[in-house]
């Protein structure tokens, strides 16, 4: 009931993330890795990604402030950033990263700056959405499952 409702909400939130292209199947891999031994795996790895990527973004921003742009360096940073993003299944972010790399290859200064803004935007958007998602979705810990079971029983008993 309440639980079911919650679950439905969580599912739809999750589905929309996929449908809207924010996440791809790599995220599902992360979820698959979450189990009793690693109850908060997904959340942990996403948190890790965001703290690490902040650093990368800062580096890129600094590099974008130096003219003429060092495209090699930028491409390098972006390569790392893209690797991280793809590892958690951040699809849109990854796509923007690819575009950025194209601009680097073409030595397109304006393009790089513009695309990077997109990258940051997607990055922040996904962060918000995931935070919301984690808040509502219970981790797959034993404790939570027991709580769920108890609640279900209570409901059934009623």
């Amino acid at each position, binding site marked *: 009931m309440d639980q079911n409702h919650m679950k439905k909400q969580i599912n739809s939130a999750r589905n929309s993330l996929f449908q809207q292209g924010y996440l791809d199947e790599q995220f599902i*891999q992360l979820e698959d890795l979450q189990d009793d031994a690693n109850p908060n795996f997904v959340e942990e*790895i996403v948190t890790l990604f965001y703290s690490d990527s902040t650093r990368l973004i800062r580096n890129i921003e600094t590099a974008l402030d130096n003219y003429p742009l060092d495209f090699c360096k930028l491409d390098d940073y972006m390569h790392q950033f893209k690797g*991280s993003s793809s*590892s958690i299944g951040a699809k849109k972010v990854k796509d923007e990263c690819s575009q950025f790399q194209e601009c680097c290859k073409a030595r397109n200064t304006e393009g790089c700056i513009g695309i990077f803004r997109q990258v940051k935007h997607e990055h922040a958007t996904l962060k918000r959405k995931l935070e919301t998602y984690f808040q509502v979705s219970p981790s797959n810990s034993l404790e939570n499952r027991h709580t769920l079971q108890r609640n279900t029983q209570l409901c059934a008993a009623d």
Partner: protein
Amino acid sequence: MTVEEIRGSVGVSNEIDRFPIGMRVLAVDDDPTCLKLLDGLLRKCQYQVTTTNQAITALKMLRENRNRFDLVISDVHMPDMDGFKLLELVGLEMDLPVIMLSGNSDPKLVMKGITHGACDYLVKPVRLEELRNIWQHVIRRKVESKSQSKSNNQEKPNQGGEGGQEAGSGDPNGKLNRKRKDEDEDVEDNGNEDDDPSSQKKPRVVWSIDLHRKFVAAVNQLGIEKAVPKRILDLMNVEGLTRENVASHLQKYRLYLKRISQQANMVVAFGGSKDASSYMRMSSLDGLGDFRTLSGSGRLPNAALSSYSPSGMLGRLNSATGVTLHSLTSPSMIQPTHPQNLTNSIGSLTKFQPVVLPTPPNHQNTNLFQGIPSSFDLGHLHQNGNKPNTTQIPDFNPIDESRIFTGPSSFATLGSQSSLKMASMSSESFNLVSSSSSYLDVPPPMGENFHDQLPPNSSLKYGYSASSNTIPSFGSNITSTASVPLEAQGQRHGQYGKPSYSPYSNNAFSTLAAAAAAPPPNGGGLGGPVSQANDQICGVYNRSNGNGATAMQRSSRETERSSTELKMGSGEEYLLEQTKLPSGFVANNGYDSLDDLMNGMMKREQDPTIMMDGEFGFDPYSFGSCIQ
């Protein structure tokens, strides 16, 4: 599936029974997100995972205990060390299967990974299915090495390996895996000349230093003209060795001699008396190197070490270093002066297509390389735009023996630098080492040793008088022996601004050379590697490195330093000690790039000679420069 097969076929050790469960993997990636993902995925496969985000730490862990891990997965793009370099080092020193990981699926990079000896190349993001199959690389390697060591021995109850082999090789894990397998097999076939072509996994003979020395002794006894495999085999009196093994080794040895004589001639032209010996050394290394390559690591067969141009440089280097063992000045001496050069030289070396010792991908001893790069740097760095080192050539002269040994390997490495056939190079370097060992059997002045030990070859003697102004024109002669493909080298050069692999090969070789050179004062030390028949050459050499180097040092330096603290028995300990040096690695002598530093590290570890000598020691300069 295969797990059951393996389990069924093995039934011997628990470890194999449960394999691949519990397989110990070392994962290296500077990106924390990816590393965590890897960790999760690997644990899901029920492997035992150790992670680190630093390549240097990974190396340290691997060096501390060779047997601590079964497999290494490493990212290509890392700040502290290039993934390919780590790959080479691991392959060279520990002979562990290494899987590369990268966000870039560019086929060129994949090719590079393979040529550097990677067992597999995965593209990020990594998927679980891909990781589920990686255990086959471990099995494959075990099988290969076991078959090698067993040679023609009777079947040992190590069915696990064979069973696993069948399971692993028979299991078509994905086209990549199959390709790798094919490649490995191809290489094996090519390399294993002594193997029956019809049989897939023929036991490969590991031509350890000791074995090679026996071989050379037998050949010398018979006389190079009359040395036929059957007689050599009889003289050697080694159990389990077949006439075919000896025949193929003899063939390589002959090629090596030919190379040496050509080199010696070139050297002569330069008037360096020491050159000849250095060449000799080199060639011996090459000889082994070939073996190494073949046995090893599934690297590309020694196809093209054609450009021995570095050999020219090597010759120079050798002369500079003075073939005399007693001139064991550590590369540090040279390095501080030319940190840039080294890096550059290495790069330039690739251009030269160092023929020399293709370092076996597994054994890339930086030490070996160290000697050479310096020389190369001197001469030909201008290619890289580094300080024109022609004038510096003289500096290298004081290169110590260790350098010399490294030289040959470095040549190989240089060639291989171009990355690709490091494996082949190493094998060559091994050859050199082993051969050189025979040459170096007589402790003191290498030069003299060479004279004595070289098979009757007037050209060689001629070479002795050559001066040390080698010019990298020898390449052409030696190229034939080099197994490093020229193209690869060129590529490498382009890709790596810094000398990366040469040091590795150097190390391997220097160690080997050391080991080979010194008549086993270490008795045990040298015997050790030999007894480790089951170990792949890398292992063997690695183990003996400490000892060998020690031995070498002793022989070379006995005259000079009575205090040579060659701890015969403690060679390995010594190595360990060395690794404990501050900063975790042996400071490099003035190496600018981390690559150099790593190489230096490798070298140091491999070559106790260098380490022991305080002056060689850690060069704070280099150390600092390496730190990023």
